[in-house]
């Protein structure tokens, strides 16, 4: 094998289990790749080579002794830097928390550790998962490897960039208004926001309690299902954690879409917003392709995008302000401009408007779930546009609200973003698949069928020479 940075979780796990790839070799190769590429792309806030190599040696010993724990054993990963890993700082990419050493693992970190995963480091984010891309923070923002100097999406920007650069085969992000799916869309990788309550948020810095999700980010659909399998599960210490059975998220991956009913939410990207023509065409082509593969595809209508956006924006503002107001009172100067503005926004919302946004949420959720009756999965846009240049603050500000991800933070349904092609400039296009609550396996089934029928997930940023290692 010439280049291990190309390997996903499933491929690497098979080789590791069979003794054909050493976790130490894999870890060392990825650390070398990070060292070489991250000066340019800034995916990592902190790389942890020594503990990673020690964990890799231990995994190698365990597996050699016949104690293989599962597909994550000996496989490197990295964490968005709002997720606690005991002994390391959780900075949220902010001056405020530059010395905030985590005293224990987040629930998801403990799961990954128990599965034998190898932690390579902490990844860049927008400040507190809300203020970015910003150039006035202690670390620079992550840069998209697709394009010259482009925005990678956010707030889980480092996670998207590290995957697209082949620095890791697995990463975790968080998604409050689309922050797993946005970088997945802009970096041409796969990002899943699972059902609200599916994955514990204990030990993860909150942005807005009632909308926050932790989600897996990978380069393929199969890898995404494997990573979700490790981190999903009830946690009594997370008040939002759902006490539901854990299905086998990979069970339907090879099932194809024949016989499935797919609802196309076309009005999101043709009426409520007008998507970039190449993005819109990619979505229509994806719907056609799923039809050709045997699915019954029909249009469905949900509430207008603006209703979901109003609801989400009010809730995020208020809940974020409630979390930050003491820091804001004492250390307002230590925030970057963007995060301070977005958090201050919550100080200006009335209690009555917040309550009405919550009541609107209940209405929208009810209406959305009714519209899903009779379909298995819905298809719509994630982003309306490809990435813009990261140094164009106005373009970044214009781009961010042009998306269709917030509806499923409002309803809590599982929603996955994945590659759907490239525009004429070589920038990624994307699509979003949405399922019924706690039916992630069905979403993965449709995503896997689409992925098999296209080659988007196999393409790599052109000037990275990923295969050359």
């Amino acid at each position, binding site marked *: 094998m010439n280049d291990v940075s190309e390997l996903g979780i499933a491929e690497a796990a098979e080789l590791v289990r069979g003794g054909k790839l050493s976790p130490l070799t894999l870890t060392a190769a990825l650390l070398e790749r990070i060292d070489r590429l991250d000066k340019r792309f800034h995916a990592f806030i902190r790389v942890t080579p020594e503990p990673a190599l020690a964990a890799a040696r231990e995994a190698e010993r365990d597996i050699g002794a016949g104690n293989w724990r599962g597909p994550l054993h000996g496989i490197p990963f990295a964490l968005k830097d709002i997720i606690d890993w005991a002994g390391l700082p959780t900075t949220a990419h902010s001056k405020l928390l530059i010395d905030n050493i985590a005293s224990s693992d987040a629930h998801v970190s403990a799961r990954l550790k128990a599965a034998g995963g190898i932690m390579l480091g902490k990844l860049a984010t927008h400040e507190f998962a809300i203020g970015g891309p910003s150039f006035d923070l202690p670390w620079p923002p992550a840069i998209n490897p697709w394009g010259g100097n482009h925005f990678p999406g956010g707030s889980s920007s480092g996670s998207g960039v590290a995957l697209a650069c082949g620095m890791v085969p697995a990463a975790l992000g968080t998604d409050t208004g689309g922050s797993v799916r946005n970088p997945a869309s802009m970096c041409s990788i796969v990002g899943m926001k699972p059902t609200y309550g599916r994955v514990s948020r204990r030990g993860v810095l909150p942005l807005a309690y009632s909308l926050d999700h932790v989600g897996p980010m990978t380069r393929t659909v199969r890898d995404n299902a494997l990573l979700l399998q490790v981190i999903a599960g009830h946690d009594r210490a997370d008040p939002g954690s759902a006490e539901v059975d854990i299905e086998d998220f990979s069970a339907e991956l090879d099932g194809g879409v024949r016989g499935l009913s797919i609802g196309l939410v076309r009005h999101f990207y043709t009426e409520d917003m007008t998507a970039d023509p190449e993005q819109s065409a990619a979505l229509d082509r994806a719907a056609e392709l799923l039809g050709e593969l045997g699915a019954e595809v029909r249009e469905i209508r949900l509430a207008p995008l603006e*209703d979901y956006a109003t609801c989400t*924006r*009010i809730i995020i503002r208020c809940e974020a302000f409630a979390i930050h*107001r003491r820091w804001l*009172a004492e250390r307002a100067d230590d925030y970057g*401009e963007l995060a301070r503005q977005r958090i*201050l926004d*919550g*100080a200006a919302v009335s209690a009555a408007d917040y309550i*009405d946004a919550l009541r609107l949420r209940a209405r929208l959720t009810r209406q959305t779930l009714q519209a899903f009756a009779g379909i298995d999965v819905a298809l719509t846009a994630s982003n309306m546009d490809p990435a813009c240049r990261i140094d164009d603050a106005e373009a970044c500000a214009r781009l961010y609200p042009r998306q269709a991800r917030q509806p499923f933070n409002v309803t809590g349904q599982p929603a996955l973003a994945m590659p759907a092609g490239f525009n004429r400039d070589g920038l990624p296009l994307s699509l979003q698949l949405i399922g019924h609550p706690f039916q992630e396996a069905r979403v993965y089934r449709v995503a896997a069928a689409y992925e098999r029928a296209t080659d988007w997930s196999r393409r790599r940023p052109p000037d990275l020479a990923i295969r050359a290692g």
Partner: protein
Amino acid sequence: MEQETSSDDLNRIATAAGLPRLSDRQLAQLGKSLASARELAGKLPKDLHWSEELALTFRLPAAGEAP
């Protein structure tokens, strides 16, 4: 035409929100927040009936479980 909030009013609002020490620049940010909040409030539906209650979910502790 949106009326600009005076600096005295911004100071009062900031203090009421628990932020008595914001700089002038930060108060200007709060001014933008107020304008944006008014715009968002205008987009909330006008037909929410009082009977559309919040979907609060309470979980009672199981037998033997600490509340």
